[in-house]
Structure formats: C-alpha cells, structure tokens
C-alpha cells in the first residue's frame, strides 16, 4: 500500500524535476534570496553606520558652548557646561560611565551656587550642560541628577562635596548608596512608595550581580529606542536588562506604558515575561544576541521567506491545473490508483518542494551570514520565554524553530493555491488569485482598521490575514533592539491561537481540494 503511494510520488517527482521551468524558477528564487541577503546586510550596516566617537561629539559640544559663551559672557550655566565637558574629556569618562551623571550634577550645582539669586528653572534649557551633537545625548531625563530643588547653600555645598568624594574614590558601590539615598529621600524618581521600591531594587541588582552601572543618561536613551550604536560590552547589556526590568515594573505598576497607553492583559503578561527573562539573563550571565553577530544576521536573513511563498504558490497553483490544461490528467487517472492517492502524492510533493526551498534558503542565509561574521558566536546561548517558562537554550536552535514556525503561513497559502488549482483547473487564475489574497490581505486589514477607527471588529481575528504575521509573537535579536514587537489585531491573540487558525484554514483548503479532485468529472 505504502509502496503504491511511493510509486506515485516518484512519478510526480520525475514530472516536476524534469520540467525546465522548475529549475528556472528555483534559480530565480536563489538569486533573489542572495540579493535580499545583500540588501539586508547593507541595511544593518547603515543602521550601525559610522558614528562619531564620544570624544568627537563632546568636542563639537565644546565648540558650540564656547560660541554661546562668546555671545553671552555672563552665562554661568554655559561656562559650567564647558567645565563639565572638559572634566569628562580630561578624565576620559565616556557617556556610558556612571561618573558622567555625577559630573553633570556637580557642575550644575556649581552653576547654581555661582548664580545665586537666579532661579535655575527659568534658564533650564539654556544654561544646563548640553551636548548638542548626537541625537542620543539630550538633557532632561526622567530621573538622573536632581533638578529643580530648593536647596540651601549649606545643603548644596554638602552635596557637592559628596559628589566630589565619590568621583575621587571612583567606587561605583558608593555611587549606588548615594542613588538609593536620593530615591529614599524623594530627591529623584517618584514619590510613590511602590515606585521608590522598584527603583531601589534596581540599584540593588547592580550590587547583587556586581555590575558596574552605566550612566543613567545612557540607559535612558537606550530604553527610548534611540541609543547610539555602542560597543556591546558586558556592563552595557546588563545595565540595559536592569533598565528593562525597572521600566517594565513601573509600567505594570502604573497600568500604562511609557507613552501613556493603557496596557492590555496580554501586554502586561508580556512585560512580566520580559522581566523574568531579564532576571534569568542576569543570573545566568547570558548576553543578548547582537543583531550584527552571526546569529543575529542569520536570523534576519532566514526570515525572508516571502520569496519561498511565491515559489510555492506558483507550483501549487499549477500542480493540478497544468494536468487539466495539457490533457494529461486523463492518463494520470486511467491507472489502477484511486484519485485520493494521486491527490496525496501531489500534496506530499508540494511539501517536499517547500522543504527543499526552505533548506536552500536557510543554507544560503547560513553561509552568507557566516562569510560576513566568520561564524563567531555560533553556539551562543540565549534565555527565552518558551511555552510559559523561562529557559536557556542555544540561540541557533531557537532560530531554526522560529524559522519553522514562520513557514506555517506559507503552507496555508500553498494549500489555498492547490485548492484554487483543483477548483478552477487554470494555473494562471489560481496563482493570481492566491497572490492577490496574500498581498491584498494586508491592504484589507488596513482598510478594516481605518473603517473600524481603531476598534477591534468582532471575529476579525479569525480571518486568515490576521494570523499570518507570526513573527509578531516571536522575539528576535533585531526586534528586541527595535523596541518590542509589532502589535497584533487583538490583545487576546497568542501564537497558539494563530497557529490553530492557520491549521484550520489549511485543513479546510485541502479538504475542499481533495473532495473536488476525487469527485468531479473530467470532461
């Protein structure tokens, strides 16, 4: 019985693989894949791009401030900003360095001291230390050094001495104590006890994991998604994880995100998952995958599967229709095999072809990424949230799994094309119709969201198009960097839901195709 099926599959293979157009199309796909890999690589390179060193940027800042001082020689804040930058440059304190915050605060206080009588708040943006060059360096952080305080001269003096002594000792543990004191006294951060607690916990994490903190300024910029492309050193990623924990905890506490949007239940769950992941990363000392490492590049390149879906649709759209078109369907059916066997042999061949195309795509991406990064860090581990628990696994494995999951919608579209192929018996019509549905789906979704004015229409989540973007459920090295996942149609949707919907559609398409093929007359 099985041997029987295998014979039919062998026939289908012979027919497909001896067809010149099969190889022409396969060649085109390979070329396009290579092309898209190059584009992909170039895009990441430009995102990394050339960025001036921090010293250069500080020097530009100095030039600027000197110009301002020339126009306005009495401006004390400008003068002190110049002093701050000179100090940073002189002591080789990079913007990542935790001392940066202390230096800025020190010179800010000094300016306050010198400009007695002037209310600092009025001159905020003109007088404070400003580093104008480089978008990433902007003043007015949510927390950081204290501002707008009413200090007596004595208090100010005391604080300046304290800052000086910490800077002199160059001991980051003292810096943490200092920050915790500030939080407790309500000098920085929020006044709510719960939020104070969150902020204190964060600083405790530095101490606990022996992490030299990154300056608040740097962290804050990172969290807002416009951090500079810095060298990913050990302390940088750790302090970023801690910052993620802090921001997520605050968001959950407030019930809204940093932009003031109310959080859905699913979003809260995601935030909590991210907290657990970050904690696990810290405790296991697992650095996140950098998007321009081998694995990061592989992941972004291997996700380019839309070309494969085109390939599959073209084949699936023709696999039955071409037999009707050439009249060979009669020869095919006048054999001692029931039609359902013939149907399955063709379906299995489609799966086989998809598997080959996917393997080819993955192999190309693998070699390509390897050539650019010398396979560095191929065995890197990563902490991920998988099926309700935080686990540590080789990231390569995750990339493969993610890749396999991203393929599922392609199979559904393949089944759709096969159904069209059987029902219409015309290659061109089935290919065109399936392509239109695939690419038109997003347009339809866009129109629906405009029509519904942001509200989620009931039942829309059961549409095929709502469930084809599986990458929104699966974090990647680049998506984490870009600041989270794209939003889903409905907050209640999960990966399991979408996969189930896709499975139901696939089964329906195949069932209709099977039924039609086995029952309809061949006129």
């Amino acid at each position, binding site marked *: 019985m099985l041997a029987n099926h295998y014979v039919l599959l062998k026939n289908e293979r012979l*027919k497909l693989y001896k067809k010149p157009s099969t190889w022409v199309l396969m060649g085109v796909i390979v070329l396009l894949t290579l092309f898209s890999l190059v584009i992909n690589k170039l895009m990441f390179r430009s995102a990394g791009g050339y960025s001036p060193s921090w010293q250069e940027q500080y020097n530009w800042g100095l030039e600027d401030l000197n110009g301002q001082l020339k126009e306005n020689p009495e401006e004390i804040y400008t003068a002190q900003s110049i002093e701050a930058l000179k100090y940073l440059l002189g002591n080789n304190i990079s913007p990542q360095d935790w001392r940066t915050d202390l230096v800025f605060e020190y010179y800010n206080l000094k300016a306050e001291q010198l400009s007695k009588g002037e209310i600092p708040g009025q001159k905020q943006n003109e007088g404070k230390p400003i580093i104008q060059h480089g978008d990433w360096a902007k003043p007015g952080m949510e927390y950081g050094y204290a501002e707008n305080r009413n200090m007596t001269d004595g208090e100010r003096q005391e604080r300046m001495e304290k800052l000086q002594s910490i800077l002199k000792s160059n001991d980051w543990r003292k810096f943490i104590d200092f920050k915790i004191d500030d939080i407790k006294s309500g000098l920085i951060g929020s006044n709510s006890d719960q939020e104070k607690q969150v902020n204190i916990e964060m600083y405790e994490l530095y101490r606990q994991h022996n992490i030299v903190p990154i300056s608040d300024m740097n962290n804050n910029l990172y969290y807002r998604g416009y951090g500079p492309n810095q060298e990913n050193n050990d302390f940088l990623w750790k302090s970023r994880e801690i910052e993620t924990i802090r921001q997520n905890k605050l968001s959950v506490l407030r019930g809204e995100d940093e932009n003031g949007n109310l959080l859905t239940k699913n979003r809260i769950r995601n935030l909590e998952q991210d907290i657990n992941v970050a904690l696990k990363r810290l405790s296991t000392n697992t650095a996140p995958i950098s998007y321009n490492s081998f694995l990061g590049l592989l992941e972004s390149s291997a996700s380019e599967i839309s070309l494969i879906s085109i390939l599959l649709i073209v084949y699936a759209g023709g696999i039955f229709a071409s037999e009707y078109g*050439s009249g060979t369907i009669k020869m095919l059916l006048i054999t*001692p095999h029931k039609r359902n066997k013939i149907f399955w042999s063709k379906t299995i061949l489609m799966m086989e072809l998809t598997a080959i195309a996917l393997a080819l795509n993955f192999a190309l991406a693998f070699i390509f990424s390897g050539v650019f990064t010398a396979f560095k860090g191929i065995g890197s581990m990563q902490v991920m949230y998988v099926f309700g628990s935080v686990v540590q696994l080789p990231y390569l494995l995750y990339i493969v799994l993610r890749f396999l999951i991203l393929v599922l919608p392609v199979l559904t579209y393949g089944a759709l094309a096969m159904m069209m192929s059987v029902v219409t018996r015309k290659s061109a019509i089935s290919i065109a119709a399936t392509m239109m549905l695939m690419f038109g789906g997003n347009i339809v979704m866009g129109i629906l969201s405009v029509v519904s004015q942001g509200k989620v229409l009931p039942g829309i989540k059961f549409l095929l198009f709502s469930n084809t973007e599986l990458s929104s459920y699966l974090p990647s090295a680049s998506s984490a960097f870009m600041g989270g996942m794209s939003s889903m149609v409905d907050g209640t949707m999960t990966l399991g839901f979408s996969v189930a919907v896709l499975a139901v559609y696939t089964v329906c398409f195949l069932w209709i195709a099977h039924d039609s093929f086995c029952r309809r007359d061949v006129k």
Partner: protein
Amino acid sequence: MSDVLVLENVYKSFGSRSIISDISLTVKEGEVFGFLGPNGAGKTTTIKMILGLLSIDSGHISILGNDIEKNFEAAMRHISGIVENPDMYGYLSGYDNLLIHARACGATKERIDEVVQLVGMQLRIRDKFKSYSLGMKQRLGVAQALLHNPKIMILDEPTNGLDPAGIKEVRDLLRYLAHTQGMSIFVSSHILQEMQQMCDTVCIINNGRILRIGSVEELTKGGGAGLYRYRLRPMEQAVALLQENIPDRIAAVHDEFVDVRVKEEELDTLNRRLMENNVSIYGLSAVETSLEQSFMEITGGGNIVG
C-alpha cells in the same frame, strides 16, 4: 469466450441535458468492438465513463467482473485507453512518459522496451514528446496503453488525423492484438469504412442511445436493404416493369442503368421476374451493401463520413 467489458443500463447527463441513455453492451475476449456514431453521439462520454473519468448516473460498468465504481483499482488493472488525443508531457522524452505510466501500472522496464519495439519507436524514444509527429504520438499512446498487458484497450478515434498508411498500420496492429494476443479492443470512430475493415462487432449509437449492435456481417447483410445497380435491356421496358412491381424501391434511373434498393435475398426473385418479362440483365453490381446503408437507415442519415 468470456465477457471482458459489460455495460448495463448506463445513464449520464450533464445538468439537465441527457447525454447517455440506457446503454447496455458486452465486449467479449479477443474481439474488436466498434463504437460507431456521428460526432456528438456520446461516444467519448461513454468511453470516459468506462475509464472512470466521469461518474455514472445510474447503471453499472464492470471489467472482468469488477465494478468500476466499487472496485476501481481492480477494474483499472485490466483496462487501458486513449481518450481523444494521446496527451502526454511534452517536456519529457517518450521513454519518461512511458516510465511514468509503467510505474503507475506496475509494468517492468523490460516491458517498456517490448512495447516500444512493438510500435517501432526505438529510434525516437529518447526524444521529447513534443517533437513527435501526430502519428508517432498515436503510436506512443498505443505503446503506453499496452504497457500493463490489459485485457481490454479502449481507443477513442485512434485513426484521427492519420494518413492512409498510418491508418492501415493502426488497423493491422489492432487486429493483431485482438486475434493473436486475445486482447479485446473497444474502438470508437465516426468513420464507417474503418469500422467495417477492422471490427468484429459494431455498435451504432446516436443521441446517446444504442441503435443497433451486431457483427459486421449481420449489419451489412441481414440488416437493411442494399443498393444494387442493374444494367438492363431494353431499358424502357425494364423501368416500366420495375415501376409496376416495386415502385418504392427504385433509387435512381439513368440511361444506362437503374439503381434499386432491395435486400440480398430478394435479388433472386427480382432477377427471375425480369427474365420472365424478356428483360436481359447485362450487369448487376452492389453499389453499397455496407454498414453505411444500415447506418443511414438506422440513424436517418446523420452526419457521417462515408
């Protein structure tokens, strides 16, 4: 001789249009069975039903006792056929096309070589199917149909588009297969001569109904009246005599001869009568005693190629 193919009260309609009504026939072992009818009579539809390409509305078709609906695979093991044109994969070689079919039917590679030999395609078998002439395509189609040694072969207009030499080739091959290999052949055509020359039994079909089934001899002789051409003297007297006796049988009157439509067994009586009345018979020949006559009679003169 056992029954190879049996159709019992088969009906088929497309929508509300009835295509086949109440067709029953039997093809015996080693018999060349002709399925004759004008275009649109339902020949191809019947063939497609026999081969399982079309469903049957009611009635039964069985091959060597296997009902084709209930026991499709067993039935199909004994039958092969070419419907309409021998359509194959143009981008594959003749050999690959045969290989595909051989695998599906469980025939060996040696058998492929055998059938290629049989139809004389050895030299071109590795060429692409699309490069073949129509005659070669037909031959390859026959080769394919022979692959799994079927008990019965169904051929839909096998001589369509062939030149006279090609037609003769096909005819000889079919008679060889039937009479020396014991294979039954079910062949449809709208060409009378062809049927007469190659078939043992002929079934005449029109508008989806069987009009008559019989051996070629039965249909040509026992059946309808033939057309005979008499050369008689004196002509006037003879014509007057004929008009007096069998006015409705005179088909045409010329200066030299007269055509009369009579049954074969009536000829003797007619000759006697003429001689008794002093009419001399200089010549008597059969103009068309063939199937055509019965066919014309039966179908009332459908569109048929003589």
